[in-house]
């Protein structure tokens, strides 16, 4: 940091002698810096974020009203709402992408919340070997998503993958997994569930660990069974953690990109079978150079994310 920090030892010794004032008297920049510490501390981070954020946002909004394509530097024409009309009436790529984004997000969220809660409840009370399982659930979480995608590509390979081999042993399959037009999206959801269920479990576990056992025990004495205790006692108490997990996972699931790109490549596969809004916007931007259309898709996508966040947080206030 370039903020000059007054040496407290010498500064205090030098000035306290000169006056009875409890604080060392200051002059110039140091005094100014100390009086404006609030903004001095916050400003660099805010300026950096604003610089990296505001230009892109304004630019994206601007591009969405133009026919920008080919090169970003190429002359653009203002075409009003044409892009919005075009995108919103596009039942070929846009609306299927919206559908896939929602199916993907809702699907992985439901499974991750349920499984994550089960794992958290399982780990709530200490037992032998607990350390091992905590390590095991941490590994998927910190693994590089692109590498995870490659790993599952081999496991789910229809011919040489162990998934079909193992299912074949019990008389199931073979399934096409990522290669199937109908099964690809569900398979990528499985991968996302593998990687991020541990995250939900850890957040909920942190919430559960902070609860006291007494309420639960009181409910048990009153004759509540296990399910009733979970539903009427534990769940309401741990609800703030559930909302945090839903928000964090929800935002990231809507924006999932790495796993989809690693497993299916550009455009979400040859039939766009895993093309979500994020993958579609990426393709429009960097494969087709349709910057105007891409910006329009992105603004609508952003609106969807904000709407989802507001929906989740307003539910919290009701409770």
């Amino acid at each position, binding site marked *: 940091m370039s903020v000059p920090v007054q040496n407290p030892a010498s500064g205090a010794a030098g000035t306290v002698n000169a006056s009875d004032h409890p604080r060392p008297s200051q002059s110039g920049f140091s005094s100014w810096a100390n009086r404006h510490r*609030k903004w001095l501390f916050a400003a*660099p981070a805010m300026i950096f974020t604003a610089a990296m954020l505001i230009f892109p946002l304004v630019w994206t909004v601007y591009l969405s009203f133009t026919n920008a394509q080919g090169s970003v530097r190429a002359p653009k024409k203002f075409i009003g709402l044409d892009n919005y009309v075009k995108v919103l009436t596009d039942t070929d790529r846009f609306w299927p992408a919206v559908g896939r984004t929602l199916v993907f997000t809702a699907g992985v969220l439901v499974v991750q919340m349920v499984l994550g809660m089960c794992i958290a409840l399982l780990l709530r009370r200490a037992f032998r070997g607990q350390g091992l399982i905590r390590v095991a659930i941490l590994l998927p979480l910190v693994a590089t998503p*692109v590498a995870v995608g490659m790993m599952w590509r081999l496991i789910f390979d229809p011919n040489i993958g*162990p998934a079909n081999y193992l299912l074949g042993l019990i008389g199931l399959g073979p399934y096409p997994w990522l290669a199937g037009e109908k099964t690809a999206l569900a398979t990528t959801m499985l991968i996302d569930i593998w990687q991020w269920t541990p995250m939900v479990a850890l957040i909920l576990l942190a919430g559960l660990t902070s609860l006291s056992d007494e309420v639960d025990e009181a409910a048990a004495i009153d004759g509540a069974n296990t399910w009733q205790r979970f539903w009427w006692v534990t769940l309401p108490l741990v609800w703030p953690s559930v909302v945090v997990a839903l928000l964090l996972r929800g935002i990231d699931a809507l924006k999932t990109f790495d796993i989809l790109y690693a497993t299916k490549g550009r455009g979400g596969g040859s039939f766009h079978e895993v093309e979500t809004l994020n993958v579609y916007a990426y393709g429009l931007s960097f494969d087709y150079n349709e910057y105007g259309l891409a910006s329009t898709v992105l603004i609508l996508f952003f609106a969807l994310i904000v709407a989802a966040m507001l929906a989740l947080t307003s539910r919290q206030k009701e409770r």
Partner: protein
Amino acid sequence: MRLSRGYRIFRGIAIALILIAMLVPLAWMVLSSFKTNVQIYDTSAVFNFTPTLDNYHKVFQQANFGKYMWNSFLVAAVSTSISLVLGVPAAYSMSRFVMKRQAIVVLMARVIPGVSLLVPWYYLFSNLRMVGGYGVLILSHMFVALPLILYILMGFFDGMPAELEEAAQVDGLTSIGAFWHVVLPLSMPGIATASILSFIFSWNNFMFALVLSGAETKTLPVAIFDFIGYASIDWGGLMAAASVVTLPIMVFALFFQKYVVSGLTAGAVKG
């Protein structure tokens, strides 16, 4: 509470299932990275093979992964360090002076889809002749690191009593001096958590490097794609590459397990 015998048996089975589900896929990746492609195509020979280092030889000699690993490390380390310098004081100010609105602006960076930033960034930084260099990668990764650091540290500072700092000021320190000599040393666990998590997120980041890096500066997650050809996939090489990308960061995370967990679950309890 006493646990019934039935529950303990159920718990044992559940734990075994979780361990298998989490670890077997990773083990398969590592195992395959020591196999030739012929051995990978033979699904029945799971353990029955002579391990070969050929794939790793390919990854480091032909595909130049040593260089890409250095790139990943450099970008993660520098972007984390600069973000800390910007983020620690900012998190402190935003927590102490309850700058909710300012904090929301910075946290919006977490919500916005990365693609919407990449087109303007690409335009801006290619005009500045920065695309393909380390600088632009570091800046883009800072954009991920800074909100993360703010999010974790604001929670940490919220829990730190303001009296500590007030006492230091009564004892004659300036307000910046109190931050430097009292608050900062006490915040080391929080700062460690934030930097470890920020390093992991940067190492794993893919999309920004995919667009903004060049042949010389590409990071490991981008370099993996060198093993996917149009016609066929070199599975042995691909699995070795994937292992080289992800094993170091997994070992790193296990080493700092406590910090990683506390960072990932930051904000979970307060809500």
